[in-house]
């Protein structure tokens, strides 16, 4: 049953490999960007009333730096996703017709491709980057919450949460992609999606910085599972029970949003106009 999606999984993995040079440049410059971010946070902590060692919204400056480094690696490894643009192109160029007559699910094709991407990215970049970052941060004392051997349980949960985050990201990209059926173009939808995800997932800043009411709402939304929660699991800022709860919430959101995507697609497909061919 799932066998027919294997070529897409493979293609996703190979496609990512083929552009590995690009990815390397990206990684190199990301380091500069993270450095700048670290200086911003250091300045924030230095400017606080209690001096640099203050804990602001549950984060010491050491933990904040670890958070920034780890969310950056996480985003880099997890979000290599072209689903929205591919759907947009399929609609604009009319190639969507080719897929509708094939005996595979349009949704399944993208899920398999994005899993392929994730696999390559995790093995080629995730493994060395996470290892290097964790070793450096722990030896500098920037991850005070880490205790062994409990860490290994958290590591396992983190990998699971990462898989969920990647699937959820693909689901959301797919929903926004299907919305292109209505708008016929993906520019606006893509920037809306990018903003929503980076603000509400805690990539821009941890959600604990949000005012209390907003924070409560955002914590129940699907986005926190896409960046903040996996990283807090890895940093052991969440205990096991909290980690399990957060991951289960993300998994539940995947199911809900997949169902929604299915309904949306079956409605949207009636709107297809193949343009010119």
């Amino acid at each position, binding site marked *: 049953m799932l066998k027919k999606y294997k070529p897409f999984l493979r293609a996703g993995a190979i496609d990512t490999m083929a552009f590995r040079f690009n990815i390397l440049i990206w990684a190199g410059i990301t380091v500069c*960007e993270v450095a700048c971010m670290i200086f911003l946070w250091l300045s924030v902590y230095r400017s606080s009333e209690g001096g640099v060692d203050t804990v602001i919204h549950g984060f010491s400056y050491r933990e904040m730096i670890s958070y920034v480094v780890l969310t950056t690696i996480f985003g880099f490894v997890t979000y290599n996703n072209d689903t929205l643009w591919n759907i947009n192109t399929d609609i604009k160029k009319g190639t969507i017709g080719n897929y509708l007559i094939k005996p595979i699910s349009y949704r399944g094709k993208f899920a398999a491709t994005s899993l392929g991407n994730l696999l390559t990215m995790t093995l080629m970049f995730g493994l060395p980057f996470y290892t290097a970052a964790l070793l450096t941060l722990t030896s500098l004392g920037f991850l005070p919450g880490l205790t062994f051997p409990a860490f290994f349980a958290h590591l396992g949960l983190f990998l699971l949460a990462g898989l969920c985050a990647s699937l959820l990201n693909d689901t959301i990209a797919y929903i926004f992609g299907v919305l292109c059926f209505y708008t016929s173009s993906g520019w606006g939808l893509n920037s809306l999606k990018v*903003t929503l995800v980076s603000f509400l997932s805690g990539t821009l800043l941890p959600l604990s910085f949000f005012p209390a009411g907003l924070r409560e709402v955002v914590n129940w939304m699907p986005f926190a599972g896409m960046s903040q929660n996996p990283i807090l699991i890895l940093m052991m800022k969440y205990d096991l029970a909290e980690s399990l709860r957060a991951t289960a919430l993300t998994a539940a959101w995947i199911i809900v949003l997949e169902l929604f995507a299915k309904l949306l697609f079956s409605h949207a497909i009636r709107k297809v106009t193949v343009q010119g061919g």
Partner: protein
Amino acid sequence: MRYIHLYFTCIKRSMISRLEYKKDTIVALFSFFFSNLCSLAAVYFILQAIPTLAGYSLAEVGFFYGFSMMPIGLDHLFSDEFWLVAYRRVKDGDMDMHFLRPVPVLFQVFAETFQPEGFGELILGVALITVCALNLTVKVTFGAIVVLIIGAVFGAVIITSLKVSMAALAFIFKRSGPLLQIIYNFSAYAKYPLAIYPALIRTLLIFVLPFGLFISLPVDTLLYGTNNPWLLSLAIICAATVFFALAVWIWTLCERRYESTGS
């Protein structure tokens, strides 16, 4: 003259094709305001936790932020097509048509899109600058106003030049979008006073990726009179000229490497 006429003809065509996608334009406008709101909220949430950022008050940081939208907004109006070149068009072999026409490819790419969303940035920036300025007590000098205008206009030229150079690399690597994205993202750091960065980064932001040169330094000149406005204006204009010349050179060198996908 011919090129000016040609530019407007192309832009008119681009606007007409854009209006075909009315719903997307509305979504784009909404998402644009939303995205700026989110970034502003993030800064506001961070500053809520501390009294001042390296000595700069909330209104001052807001002013920096608002001013940074001027060059970014201006660039946004004219050079949005380079994102597509860097991310997809070269990779998809979609540039063939430009090479067949008797007009420089670089010009054609500029003429491909005019992005009215840039006006949104400019309006939002002016609004933020006004609100923050009302909460500040600054002695405004003529020189400071000039350097701010020069910073906005020639800053936009520098951002566009960086975009062109990075997009040109797509002709060699097939896809240079991520690279362009990251260089562009450095503009985010110029939204804050240079004082928060260590000397090395400050130097980088003035001399290598000069976002600090045309955003932070002019604003500092207005708020604290730290620099001679005329010398600073001259430096910004020189930098813009060098960056633009370099960008055109890199583009001309790289476009020869273009190969179609043959499909």
